[in-house]
């Protein structure tokens, strides 16, 4: 976000009169060959220094230690070299830039390592067979390639699907309450007096009450979005599974997931609804539409891609939840397609249980199931990104082009 070009870095101020010939273009953020070589040489010397420390003096050992020590050595050497050449201020600036860049790299590296590790350990098991069979009749000594995770995949899809059916509408409706009903008209610049509701039928006092209610609900939703997922599991366990004597089953798991989904979707949807311009609402009301019509035909369609993204991202987050399911769905090594009766399996629980078993074949199965799970999450994430980048209305167009939506002149 550079608005004004920062000062030229790393050039000593000319001490005497400037030479008349040096009228080349000044690049404030330029990075000359000398600077590049400084960077490379500092890096090399840091690695050499660390190598000497590790393998000649053998004070330290371990890959992680090597990386950390070389980074520290690099920062030190780079600072000293820059300070020698350009002065203290420029040196500090460069070292901080390096540190900050390293931080960004430190985010990317674990992600790449995690996915790489899963692919490496789990990919060889992934096959059509693995995706379409359950663990029925798999004996103690059977190799990892026998049996599969179809029961866990079906369980996950059903539990998450039910959770979405329950949690997503509730989340969106709560967001509508927060942003449409419990909001003062003053939020739309230049519209109505501060204390009036956007909808003139609602008295100022009532609008104030709704506003306060919305504020309280917003605080509670924020708090809810941060409760540990295992607490949601415990709640469903004591209320539904044990309290109502309902027993462990898929539906209990989806209830727990719905509790986690609701605040998540609500918060994102509220952000999206906030962006819908107030003048659209006012135009609709001025044309004689009712409040309900305005929300249904103006606000929600405008925010459609955003709401869809919110729901999809919420799902992607909830698909991998293990802890609440561990307490609510039980476990099952064979296919149980009915989420309303009997214990079910799910992918995260499968990964958790099987990695804790002692046999190598089971641990390999856990890795492969983990890869399937991450694949599922990635697919959801990518779809959410694509939908999120669409402009308003283009989702309709896309569906129409795919012959999934009725052709209309106006939508």
């Amino acid at each position, binding site marked *: 976000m550079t608005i004004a070009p920062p000062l030229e870095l790393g050039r000593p101020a000319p001490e005497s009169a400037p030479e008349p010939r040096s009228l080349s273009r000044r690049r404030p953020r330029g990075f000359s060959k000398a600077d590049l070589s400084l960077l490379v040489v500092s890096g090399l010397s840091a690695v050499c220094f660390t190598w000497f420390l590790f393998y000649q003096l053998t004070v330290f050992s371990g890959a992680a230690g090597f990386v950390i020590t070389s980074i520290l050595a690099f920062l030190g050497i780079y600072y000293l070299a820059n300070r020698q050449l350009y002065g203290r201020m420029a040196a500090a600036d460069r070292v901080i830039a390096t540190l900050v860049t390293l931080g960004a790299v430190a985010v990317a590296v674990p992600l790449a390592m995690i996915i790489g590790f899963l692919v490496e350990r789990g990919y060889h098991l992934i096959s059509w067979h693995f995706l379409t069979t359950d663990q029925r009749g798999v004996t103690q000594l059977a190799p990892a390639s026998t049996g599969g995770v179809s029961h866990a995949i079906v369980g996950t899809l059903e539990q998450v699907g039910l959770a979405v059916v329950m949690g997503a509408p509730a989340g969106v409706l709560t967001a509508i309450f927060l942003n449409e009903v419990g909001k003062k008209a003053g939020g739309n610049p230049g519209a109505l007096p501060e204390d009036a509701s956007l909808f003139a039928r609602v008295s100022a006092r009532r609008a104030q009450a709704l506003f306060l*209610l919305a504020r309280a609900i917003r605080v509670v939703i924020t708090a809810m979005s941060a409760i540990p997922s295992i607490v949601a599991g415990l709640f469903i366990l004591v209320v539904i599974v044990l309290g109502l004597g309902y027993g462990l089953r898929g539906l209990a798991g989806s209830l727990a997931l719905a509790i986690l989904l609701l605040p998540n979707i609500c918060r994102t949807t509220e952000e999206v609804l906030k962006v819908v311009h107030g003048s659209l609402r006012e135009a609709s009301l001025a044309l004689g539409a009712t409040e309900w019509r305005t929300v249904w035909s103006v606000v929600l369609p405008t925010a459609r891609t955003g709401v869809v993204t919110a729901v999809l991202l919420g799902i992607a987050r909830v698909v991998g939840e293990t802890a609440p399911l561990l307490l609510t769905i039980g476990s099952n090594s064979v296919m149980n397609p009915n989420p309303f009766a009997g214990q079910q399996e799910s992918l995260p629980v499968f990964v958790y249980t099987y990695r804790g078993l002692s046999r190598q074949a089971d641990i390999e199965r856990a890795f492969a199931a983990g890869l399937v799970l991450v694949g599922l*999450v990635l697919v959801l994430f990518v779809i959410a990104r694509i939908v999120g980048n669409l402009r308003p209305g283009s989702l309709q167009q896309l569906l129409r082009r795919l012959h999934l939506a009725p052709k209309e002149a106006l939508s």
Partner: protein
Amino acid sequence: MTSTSEGPEGAGSSAPVGGAASGDAPDGWQELPKPRFLTARWTRQDRIYRLLVTSVAVGAFALLFAIGLFLFLKSLPTYKHESFWTFLTTTSFNTTGHQVFGVAAALYWTVVIALIAVVVGVPIALAAALFITEYAPRRLRRALITLIDLLAVVPSVIFGLWGFFVLEPNVTGFAHFLSAHLGFIPIFHTSSTTLAGGASNLEGSAFIAGIVVGLMIVPIVTSIAREIFSLAPIGEREGALALGATKAGVIRAVVWPFGRGGFVGATMLGLGRALGETIAVAIVISLTFQVSPELLKTGANSIAALIAIQFGTGGALKLAALLAAGFVLFCVTLVINLGASVIVNRSRTGASA
């Protein structure tokens, strides 16, 4: 589409509007138009809509209290058995033999792991947020934001697997180095680093669990910090640059003072997440009920992981004890998160915290 516009009762009492258009203005004098008040009837759809939306929202509101209430009610058998204070201060978790159990060890290790996570994760998040707002070119910025969102959706069980199978073997050497060379610092002190058979005594420690959880809180802290840093006033940035500040100078003089309060809030939110992290911790640690200051040594605990590991392994009393532990966790995370969101919201609106 049913009527809003003006109802008939509104039109009757008001003066004619738009005298020029009405055509029959008396010569020389024209009455000024008075404001008309639009009154519209509620339609049935509107009533249903308002009722539905409000009741769902109030239901969501009630849900949180229901969670707290039921956890508390169902953990009452614990307090029939022993006092709340005993439960809070006992380290062992013995629900069968002596039946003296408590949450002290789990609570201690939960806090320790969360603090290690904050120490590991927050600097990374700070650097990543600053890189995104201050240094990255636009394309890279968008890519990085996507990457961080992606890190946020990686399931915690996958983090646990990675921590157990990849991170632990690589970090044990580092932990060994810390205990051997920096053991004089209390937090790195370890009494013995090898077991009798020569096996390492540094696996399944709070240190390793803390690193894993630290990586898991990076996305949430980064995204909030990024949002707050990007709100730093542009005029003051330009002013600093015009006065000859370097980028680091701008960060130190404008971005950081402006975003400090919000960043503290973001850190607290990260801490709240770290306290409640379950499965990754359950996979990485080896459970212990001893409170010890040796962070690098095998053996740790956490309330959430304790519930996940011990659920279904005992009778009614154990379940009640686990529920009581869950209630303690619920209260702790609630307090921390509410505090954090208050701080974050305050700094979003521009006031300094």
